[in-house]
């Protein structure tokens, strides 16, 4: 009996010791360098200097959120570089950027001492580096999230923050007839795109805003209607074949475009795919729209900014405090013209190294919260 009591006491002591160690490991610690890899190549960190490359622009925005403390009402950064959680320690244009923690940051010093950002790493390299542990943080394509997880990479996906749409080019005969546009929209199997191409990382999109934004996304149908599409298409006599443009550097766009070409063929629609270039003449193209605000109206405004007035989306007449119903109505009006055909929502997916702790996926319009991340010390 006594022996049993001793044994029990020893076991409890061991468990308490282990729990204490576990508590210690969950406690944030300062220090370390966070190794970040990005695909973009940034040539200038000046926030005023604009760039035509959306990937570079987005990356600049993310880094800017680490360097600047405040933003102007239009979303641009305010103040001086270094007023944020980090300041620039080393800068090699287009190659590497090292940020050092700002000791006097008013929001408190970042846990990591520095962030090393290596530019120009493609998605495959980023995944490999994450798997090998030579990178701590990288954004990865949603369609690779599943494979990344299978390779042992910690994956963090945000709520849907990106909308992939088909945008018809104005002035092209192929997209003039709304029935043609509707037939095309109805023939697309969005669920198959999500399940197979996106490997279930995403949601079929019938409207412009995701469900979490305005709460009305479920009102828009997303299922394919090949029969209806075929019937619609048959009503159009002599409609010319259509050309779908996609970004040559985006494998996801290419896969979606090719799938759409297969889908619309079932409805009798002739659609070819081609890479967007200055010489190409496409009737519609794939566009990826980043949701820049968690507020529905501002998110729609961001779409207008990206798509231009040709989208038919009227935001100016929408009051700043527009209700969900008003926004839905405006959304529905836009979608019913089929000039913009929503396809899928995509989350932002991040790969995390094994020592990264306390990472939280940012909301729409927010930058990477790397100041809150800390690194667990590697065991020797």
């Amino acid at each position, binding site marked *: 009996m006594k022996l049993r009591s001793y044994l029990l006491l020893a076991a409890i002591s061991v468990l308490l010791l282990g729990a204490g160690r576990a508590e210690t490991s969950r406690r944030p610690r300062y220090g370390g360098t966070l190794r970040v890899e990005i695909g973009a190549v940034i040539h200038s960190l000046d926030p005023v200097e604009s760039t035509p490359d959306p990937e570079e622009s987005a990356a600049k925005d993310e880094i800017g959120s680490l360097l600047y403390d405040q933003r102007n009402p239009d979303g641009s950064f305010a103040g001086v570089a270094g007023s944020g959680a980090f300041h620039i320690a080393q800068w090699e244009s287009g190659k590497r950027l090292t940020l050092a923690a700002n000791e006097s940051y008013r929001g408190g010093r970042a846990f990591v001492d520095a962030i090393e950002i290596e530019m120009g790493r493609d998605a495959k390299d980023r995944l490999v580096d994450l798997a090998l542990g030579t990178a701590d943080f990288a954004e990865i394509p949603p369609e690779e999230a*599943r494979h990344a997880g299978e390779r042992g990479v910690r994956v963090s996906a945000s709520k849907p923050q990106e909308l992939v749409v088909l945008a018809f080019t104005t002035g092209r005969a192929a997209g003039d007839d709304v029935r043609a546009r509707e037939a095309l929209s109805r023939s697309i*199997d969005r669920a*198959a795109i999500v399940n*197979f191409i996106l*490997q*279930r990382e995403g949601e079929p999109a019938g409207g412009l805003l995701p469900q979490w934004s305005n709460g009305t996304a479920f009102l828009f149908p997303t299922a394919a209607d090949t029969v209806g599409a075929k019937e619609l298409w048959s009503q159009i006599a002599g409609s010319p074949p259509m050309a779908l443009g996609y970004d040559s550097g985006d494998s996801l766009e290419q*896969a979606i475009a*090719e*799938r759409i070409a*297969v889908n619309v063929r079932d409805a009798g629609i002739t659609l070819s795919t081609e890479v967007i270039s200055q010489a190409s003449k496409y009737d519609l193209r794939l566009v990826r729209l980043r949701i820049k605000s968690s507020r529905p109206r501002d998110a729609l405004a961001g779409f207008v900014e990206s798509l231009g007035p040709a989208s038919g989306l009227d935001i100016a007449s929408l009051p700043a405090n527009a209700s969900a119903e008003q926004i839905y109505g405006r959304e529905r009006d836009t979608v019913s013209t089929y000039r913009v055909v929503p396809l899928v929502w995509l989350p932002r997916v991040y790969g995390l190294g094994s020592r990264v702790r306390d990472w939280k996926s940012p909301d729409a319009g927010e930058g990477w919260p790397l100041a809150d991340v800390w690194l667990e010390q590697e065991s020797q």
Partner: protein
Amino acid sequence: MTFRTKLFWVFTIALLLSVGAIVAGVTIVSRQAFEESNRQHSEALVAQFEDEFQRRGQDVVHRVQGIADAEGTVRMAIELSRPKADVSVYVNDARGVSQSHQLDILDFVASDGAIISSNEWPARFGYKMDWLTQTADWASTGSFLMRVDTQDGPALGLMSVSTVRVGDRDLYILGGERLGKDFLNSLVLPAGMRALLYLDLQPNFDATNLVDTAGPVMDGDRLGPFIEQERQNPVPQTFRISWAASDPSSAEGFHALPLLGRQKELLGVLLIGSSQREVVLLERRIRDLALGAVALGLFFGLMLSWWGAARVTHPVQKLAEGAREVSEGNWSARVNVRGPNEIGQLASAFNRMTTQLGEQREQLVQAERVAAWRELARRLAHELKNPLFPLQTTVENLQRAKDHSPDQFEDVFRESTGILLSEIENLKTIVGRFSDFAKMPQPELGPVQVNDVVRAVVKLFESQLGAVGRPPITPELHLEENLPVIQADATLLRRAIENLVLNAMDAMPAGGVLMLRTTHQDDSIDIEISDTGGGLTPEECDRLFTPYYTTKQHGTGLGLAIVQSVVSDHGGRISVESETGVGTSFHIRLPIKPASPPVAAHPIHQAPDPVPAEPQTAPAPEMSESSESPASEGT
């Protein structure tokens, strides 16, 4: 065309025909040999292709089976056999597996026929391939041709299907090799041959579906009719096409093999092309060589023909030359041709013939001379006998009168001497005539108007023509006006015409018409003197111009001989036409300008010779076969 030229052409044509036949024969035989070789080559290639095709099929079967047997595939089949299996995980697997197994076409297909993953058309996941599930035993099917839908459009694939069965579910692995330019590139073809592939994917011929190792075939439209023919009758066929009409070496022979699917439907056509370029070039080289040999042969053949023709015709030419000389009167002409052949024998016969002819001619001349001298002796005897007889009788009368009647001797003497003188004068006249003929003067040429001479002669005889006591003879003159002046001796010419007029008058003792006509040709004038007398016999005509020949009682036989001599001396010719009972016509043709100086007259002793010893100096008289009347000798 000479005999030599004819013979040359005969040899040449025979040579050309022989050489042409040989060249044509060589060309045809070589072409047939090349075509046969080419055909065997093509058939071997077709057989090779079929073997290669089978080998490829087996290879595809093995590779697809290899995929089916792979651990990953088996694991996939196991996962898919579970309820609510997530097939999306495998959507990209076909790409990697196809690359590792070097297959152009690869589809993983679920037991319900839905495509799980596709290499040739990745976006086609979820679509059904129901035909896969309808065949129970794919293991025994082997490889087959199939139309495959790809992202780039329809394609033709050499396919195989394997299955992995887990529980009651099958995982189908459809894999294959795309038949296209890569496939054609992998075929080992000998130089000059190529393989084309037509993918029979459209209802009508589309040249873009016809590819070779470099892609779409240039001028592929030209092969459209043959493809259509193959489409209508899908059996192996051969045909030939010339890509450039002006270049025979552009020709290409094709073996067309239909590519059939599992249901024996036509999916494509494989064309094995064999360029005829080498054959044509070889044929051209042979032809050029043959032509060169022909040209060389022709050159030497022509030389040989010319030499042969010359060798054959040379003795013939000699014979012809000898015959020509003989015809021109050279009876001593001989042909110097020797040899045992027919030509040599002919030459010997010719030489013997001319020798005999010469001897016979000499004998004839001798006979003629003897006859002429006899005729001359007869005429002289006849002419001299007439005055000699009165001389004899007169002398005898004188002797008789002196012996028997001295008183009358004076009278008789006076009368007899008168007779003697008269007869001696007569003898002198006779001798003078013969002397005159012997001394025919050389003509002295000068401008002469023949019409004037004719008129003068007629005027001279005008009184005699209409003399009282004899039947009248009517002269008729038909003289051509503007008769050109000729170069002649007027005196001799007048003498000749006078002789002919006198002969005509003698031929018309009962009167008649004396016609004189002058005409002129290009370079000569004709004088015709005709009578309406009794005419001459042919025999008389033959000897008419022979000196001392006469049919008259008091003629010397020299008149027409003199006429002929004058005409000959002027370079002219005289002939006679006569018809018994109708009359006789003498035709004289005189050149306006004698070609050569007048030849010397014949000495009298040669005059009787009826066959001229020197033919070029005295044209023979031409006489008709009919007629003749006794010609007068006016002198």
